[in-house]
């Protein structure tokens, strides 16, 4: 599928310019090479968007002309049906590979192909509006172009250089935020002629902060072990993801509820603070409970139980490494209220890894290990307080040397430029947890004053059962939870059942909406995805 969109891009951009020999070679490849549809939604969207366009470029061809034995008309109809379904599911149930700094490109590019070159004007418009949708999703969770908060998938380099991602490249192109980056996927979007609604740029550029952004997403499709929270979408099973971000002019603290929300590369929460040169900064802070297991592997992949971990690690090389930076865990639970966050973990004896890793990036300044157990740091114009429940030991990032030693282009290329100089606090205990409190420096007379204020905050936890925690934040909110129970804020359980698809100052959409209405500063736009393509006579899948 990765081969397909690049082929289609050349075929579209090269129309009338390619030699006869080149055209014949393209035709030969579409007949003889069977491109895989892949196993994730981004693969499928790329596959079907590309197949849709090339079916139109080579309209009227019989099945014998195509790799899959189906005619141009059949391939075009099949592609349109899937894309329609993906749009329907995404705009009613949330995206499966949600909010990924890298994989946003794998969705924007195929949509850009459709927005730029789809023959049907209704479908072309729908693709354009779907780019709006994804870029709005990004705009409300980014700071200076850097995607922040919980990510479905993120690579180590993207974790440690969060401003050097496809999302940031799209942010500069679409909204003028962040640094300009060399990025082929942004080029495809530019070539498509797409232009975002003005209101999105105003939102992305940071007006009206601070605010809280809540989003309901969903996990990747679960093949097995779907669990009690699973719900069915057609033939597929998935479970809800509840995202919460506190978006401040100086920082974003964002999280999901934790758990196995993605099979690989999940980032459950992070803190991102404003910097002047976002493409070069390592402005990130987070905790991860590393986890790998056949249970997880077979939940999301078609692999055999015994081979699954090895097969995953053939491409995502750090999947089974104790020092990996991205992971979901079935033994973690996270919740957040404003700029404060709580994480709990209960790790059974048989778990592959039994520790929490908290990354202290090289960009943090004046890190203080306070006798109270709090650890303080300056993060740009932000103060950070972190309280592990069990003391840890400091290790260097990539302490196994896996990435430093070379782990393939995807994972570790140019490691020396982004992987060195970071420390990890490794805390190992079967019952564990932590509290995070963030505040803008401007709210305190000094760094010392922030530390004093945090030390004075009521905090209690116990690890002989649970774990359990009760923490009163700087704003006086009381966060409390026992592991495995619904967390409470000021004594009231968080209402996950009513979590909206989008809820922020600019948009309010319930699960199932199929629409997006955005307004800000007197400007607005509305998209209704419920019936646009169907009105053009397309067959419903």
């Amino acid at each position, binding site marked *: 599928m990765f081969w397909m969109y690049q082929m289609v891009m050349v075929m579209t951009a090269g129309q009338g310019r390619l030699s006869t020999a080149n055209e014949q070679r393209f035709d030969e490849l579409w007949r003889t090479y069977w491109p895989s549809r892949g196993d994730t939604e981004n693969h499928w969207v790329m596959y079907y968007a590309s197949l849709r366009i090339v079916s139109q470029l080579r309209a009227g061809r019989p099945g014998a002309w195509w790799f899959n034995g189906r005619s141009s008309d059949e391939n075009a109809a099949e592609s349109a049906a899937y894309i329609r379904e993906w749009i329907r599911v995404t705009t009613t149930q949330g995206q499966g590979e949600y909010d990924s700094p890298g994989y946003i490109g794998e969705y924007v590019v195929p949509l850009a192909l459709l927005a730029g070159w789809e023959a049907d004007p209704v479908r072309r418009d729908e693709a354009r509006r779907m780019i709006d949708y994804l870029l709005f999703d990004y705009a409300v969770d980014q700071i200076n172009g850097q995607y922040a908060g919980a990510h479905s998938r993120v690579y180590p380099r993207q974790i440690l250089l969060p401003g050097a991602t496809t999302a940031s490249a799209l942010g500069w192109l679409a909204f003028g935020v962040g640094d300009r980056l060399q990025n082929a996927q942004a080029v495809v979007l530019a070539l498509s002629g797409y232009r975002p609604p003005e209101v999105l740029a105003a939102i992305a550029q940071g007006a009206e902060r601070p605010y809280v952004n809540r989003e309901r997403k969903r996990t990747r499709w679960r*093949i097995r072990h779907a669990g009690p929270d699973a719900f069915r979408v057609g*033939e597929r099973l998935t479970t809800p993801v509840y995202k919460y971000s506190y978006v401040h002019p100086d920082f974003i603290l964002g999280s999901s509820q934790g758990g196995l929300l993605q099979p690989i590369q999940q980032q459950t929460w992070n803190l991102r603070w404003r910097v002047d040169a976002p493409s070069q900064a390592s402005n990130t802070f987070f905790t991860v409970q590393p986890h790998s297991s056949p249970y997880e592997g077979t939940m999301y992949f078609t692999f055999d139980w*015994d*081979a699954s971990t090895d097969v995953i690690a053939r491409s995502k090389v750090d999947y089974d490494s104790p020092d990996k930076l991205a992971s979901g865990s079935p033994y973690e639970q996270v919740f957040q209220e404003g700029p404060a966050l709580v994480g709990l973990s209960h790790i059974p004896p048989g778990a592959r890894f039994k520790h929490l890793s908290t990354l202290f990036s090289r960009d943090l300044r004046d890190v203080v290990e306070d006798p109270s157990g709090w650890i303080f740091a300056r993060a740009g114009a932000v103060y950070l307080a972190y309280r592990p429940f069990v003391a840890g030991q400091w290790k260097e990032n990539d302490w196994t040397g896996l990435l430093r030693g070379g782990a393939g282009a995807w994972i570790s290329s140019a490691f020396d430029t982004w992987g060195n100089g970071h420390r990890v606090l490794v805390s190992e205990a079967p019952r564990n947890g932590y509290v995070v409190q963030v505040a803008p420096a401007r709210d305190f007379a000094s760094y010392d004053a922030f530390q004093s204020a945090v030390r004075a905050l009521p905090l209690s936890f116990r690890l002989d059962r649970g774990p359990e925690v009760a923490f009163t934040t700087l704003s006086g909110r009381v966060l409390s939870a026992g592991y495995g129970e619904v967390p409470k804020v000021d004594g009231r359980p968080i209402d996950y059942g009513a979590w909206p698809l989008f809820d922020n100052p600019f948009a309010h959409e319930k699960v199932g909406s199929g629409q997006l209405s955005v307004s800000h500063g007197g400007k607005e736009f509305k998209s209704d995805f419920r019936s646009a393509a169907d009105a053009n006579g397309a067959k419903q899948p």
Partner: protein
Amino acid sequence: MAVSAPVSALQASGTAHELFAAASMTRSQRNSSIPTDWGMFRRDGREGWSLFGPRILGVAGLAYDPFNPDVLLLAAADGVVRSEDRGRSWRLTTGWRIADVRAFAFDAGDPLRVYAATQWGPIRSVDGGRSWESVAEGLPVRYSQTLVADRIIPGRVLLGTESGIFLSEDAASSWRPVNSPPVTILRLVQSASRPALLLAGTEGRGAWRSRDGGRSWQPVDPGSAKANLYAVAIRADDPDVLAIGGWATGVRVSTDGGETWSARGAGLPNPWVQALAFDPDHPGRLSAAVHEEGSYVSDDLGRTWTFAGLYGAYGHDYAFVPAASR
């Protein structure tokens, strides 16, 4: 073998078979999600294999129409791929709703009725594999990767799921659980010569046997009682000869219908066995797919093994298909 077919005139006449293997070459796969080669391979010499059909990722099995072996079905991640001319041309016959197809079974009473196990639930065709529909309604769990269509009774299908075996007696229109272990069923086979006998390999609960056509199941072989068994096979002409294989289990063989078992993996390069099949043309010859080592063959029920090609393969299944009819 995942292929369960009624005994056709071709088979009854003793037609020779060709051996196929679904495999992915993963041994040298590093820093990549793509094997170095993959697809359905046809054996064309002692150690020689050549790609057969399209090079599709996630090919898991091959089946043939028992009354017209020129009609072939490939089980693939992309869906069902069908040929009517023994592989000269192919057509994808499923749409976006169907993926990760693992095994096929032709109905005993109607060669146009075909069932398939997919990891998203069972599907059925009533036109010989030209089109497909989901038949998962009523199943509490849908994951399936193995199934058997009864060789004798039309419309009777046994499906291995994430939570045991389910039985349909109305051509997969409805399902009910049978008395089987509530774990993932990795492989189901039915004896060709004693159809009441079936053998199942499970995830974590070893091998199970049924002597009543799949209505009830009992564990066999205490020596592999907790194993993940990906491979089970029954010798076509002698239902007392059974073979099982799995992860860290090697190959184990019974010659008394499953009452006693012997370890027969000592001659293999590792104990990770992913597929087994008895050769219908050479009674007693057993093929084994050994993880990333390739295909091995034994003519003495596993006492000795000989390398048979496909070095580096992650083997998914074997299929014996009657030789070309014209």
